[in-house]
């Protein structure tokens, strides 16, 4: 696994430690998939702190007013980033989890479809939003999250993930939206 950045050639010692703290579990959730497990990084307080710091350093001068985190692993990284940036945190959830009025966006899976939801009123028109998830694979989930936020008139500044599965070319799914990742895995 190499430690790279999407749009600059910055290498950072912290990224090497983060990359090596991530564990790969073969054949999960099904045969042939090499699952990138970030829970081992959460067991290393230095690596976890460095992960958050790297995101905060990138976004602190970018006037981000909303950090939107995709359930459930986006809930682990999003809130600490939101707190450090002084931004709102908005959870993007599986269907029927959020109480009250929601908007929904359906998206394709390998087989079938799924849906994600966000609260009505959580994000205002024109707000500058960062979307967080632990990993980008095909980009289907992030593309749906971008659509949800754009439907309420938000400006999605960037998507940020700890890991990118480069071979799956998730970036191509996101149109003109940039993606920032700490670790690229092939």
């Amino acid at each position, binding site marked *: 696994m190499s430690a790279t950045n999407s749009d600059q050639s910055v290498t950072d010692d912290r990224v090497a430690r983060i990359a090596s703290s991530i*564990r790969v579990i073969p054949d999960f959730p099904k045969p042939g998939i090499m699952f990138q497990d970030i*829970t081992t990084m959460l067991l290393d307080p230095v690596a976890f702190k460095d992960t958050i710091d790297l995101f905060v350093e990138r976004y602190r001068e970018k006037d981000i007013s909303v950090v939107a985190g995709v*359930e459930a692993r986006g*809930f*682990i990284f999003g*809130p600490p980033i*939101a707190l450090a940036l002084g931004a709102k*945190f908005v959870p993007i959830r599986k269907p029927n989890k959020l109480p009250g009025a929601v908007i929904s966006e359906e998206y394709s899976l390998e087989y079938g479809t799924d849906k994600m939801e966000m*609260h009505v009123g959580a994000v205002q028109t024109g707000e500058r939003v960062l979307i967080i998830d632990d990993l980008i694979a095909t980009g289907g989930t992030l593309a749906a999250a971008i659509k949800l936020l754009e439907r309420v008139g938000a400006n999605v500044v960037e998507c940020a993930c700890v890991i990118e599965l480069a071979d799956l070319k998730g970036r191509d799914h996101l149109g003109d939206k940039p993606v920032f990742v700490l670790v690229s895995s092939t």
Partner: protein
Amino acid sequence: MSSADRISAIKSSLRVIPNFPKPGIMFQDITTLLLDPKVFKDTVDLFIERYKNENISVVAGIEARGFLFGPSIALAIGAKFVPLRKPKKLPGEVISEKYILEYGSDCLEMHVGAVKSGDRALIVDDLIATGGTVCAAMNLVERAGAEVVECACVIEVPKLKGRERLKSCGIPLYALVES
């Protein structure tokens, strides 16, 4: 700002949604707290102030809303964060604990090796109701050989007696607001 003032603002930031997820339940919605950066920061700070000198080595957060609060606490106090998840979400080797619901049962899982003998653990969730889920979480952590120091929640629902249930297992509860 005093604790009392911060807690008052936290309580006011919560939203109650009637009849969710089913008729008769007054659902305590913490998402409105997350939309107020100052109140969210105060919430996390109150927990950090309480635990930073308690030698906590593990913060175990219950999926999914425990993930919203637990990691920030863990980061500030230098502890490991351990997610406790619904079945089949965690890859690799897990231990499972079954618990009883009003109708039927559910299961909570934790990674083997995440928590070690000698760890001092905090269990975090957004809300405690009957205490069933928290007790399952506590059992997982204790089975791994660690000590559960306390359970920390934003909201307690006193009429559901979660505090008493935890007390009978020897675990104190710290909650910021009562519903």
